[in-house]
């Protein structure tokens, strides 16, 4: 069993324990217990809950860190797409320049034709 599996199994058992501590059986058992036992049980419940949240946060932090590490590549991808969009419209710019030039030539040709 690798550390990740062990962690998942521990988390699963802790979650089941916390859920059991909300059962009627647990509550009835504590009702007949002395103050010291009840105090111990309360501390154990807090410890179980804390361990659950810490392990969950650890799992989420590991994934979060990998996501953040991927941000550079993802952002580069988005920027590359934006640049590609600009290049697509640059095709239009070239055509616009040609069109404008041809417009000028179109005005010059009749003038030249009228020369002796």
């Amino acid at each position, binding site marked *: 069993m690798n550390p990740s599996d062990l962690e998942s199994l521990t988390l699963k058992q802790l*979650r089941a324990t*916390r*859920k059991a*501590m*909300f*059962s*009627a059986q647990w*509550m*009835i058992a504590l009702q007949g217990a002395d*103050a010291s036992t*009840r*105090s111990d049980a*309360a*501390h154990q*419940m*807090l410890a179980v*809950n*804390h361990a*659950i*949240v*810490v392990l*969950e*946060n650890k*799992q*989420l*932090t590991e*994934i*979060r860190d990998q*996501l*953040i590490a*991927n*941000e550079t*590549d*993802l*952002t*580069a*991808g*988005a*920027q*590359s*797409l*934006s640049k*590609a*969009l600009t*290049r*697509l*419209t640059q*095709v*239009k710019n070239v*055509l*616009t320049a*040609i*069109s*404008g030039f*041809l*417009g000028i*030539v*179109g*005005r010059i*040709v009749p003038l030249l034709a009228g020369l002796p």
Partner: protein
Amino acid sequence: MKAIGGSGFFAFARIVPLVAALCLAACATKQVRVDQFAAFAATGTAFTHSVDPVLTESFDASAKANALVLLQTRDDLSPTDRLSALQQADDDLNTRLAILADLKRHLGVLQSYFDALASLAATNAESSGMTAVAQGLFDSLGKLDGRIASASIAGQSIDSLIAPAAEFLFVSHQSRVLNRELRQHATAVDREIRLQQAALQALAEVYASDLAVLAAKEYRDQVALPFAGPGALAADWAGTRASLLQGALASTSIAAAADATARLRSSFVALVENRLSHAGIAALQTDINNILTAIDKSRAARAADQPSAEPKP
């Protein structure tokens, strides 16, 4: 201009419809490819929008489960221990909030990628102005030589062929650009979707565990303890029990989001392999709708649980 007016024109005129038909077919194929990118970008955007409230939902459940633990232990702790427990629980939840805030911020980065992809895929010859420029080019050529302005090919005026030709050239170029971008960044996008899936699966387990605590407490207080006790049971006891048992089986928004991420990834693979179908996109859209439906249900249930703001008589 000789090709238009000379004997070669007739041979040219016979070829043009064939070439035009081939171009139209090629254009249609490339347009399908561009549409695949557009559909993937649109569903990707919908996905990121739907995941944001799911993360909020997750925190709400964790905070509630955390509070139930504090409340259940409170009577058996000294005031000093109560404050220590509260402090530790707050610290744990603040750490969770910071992680979720990072995940939400990161969704914005993913959103930017889908937005850029959508913009590139949504652009066409008309919207980019290329058709107008091609028309302008033709008009300019017409000014140089009047025969160009009035020329026709196979019975069709050249003027009427400008827009389809511009569209063909544009879509061909666009499809090539999109494919190139896909190849360049496929690894990063695939890694991103896999990590989103891992995050949502982990959160789905957290959420299920927190909901299980809320449900266990409710079942204990409304069903088990009254049943174990000596008093008479409430008239709706059986109905409450049935409803709580069924509620435990209801699918959650986060589980739906995790399912949708799996589908988003398979859609991305299909896009890379040029086989993304309408059916695949429709299935992904259904998954996203399931997330939204689950969020709506959860919000409605929460609103029903809220005490009325109306002043009591």
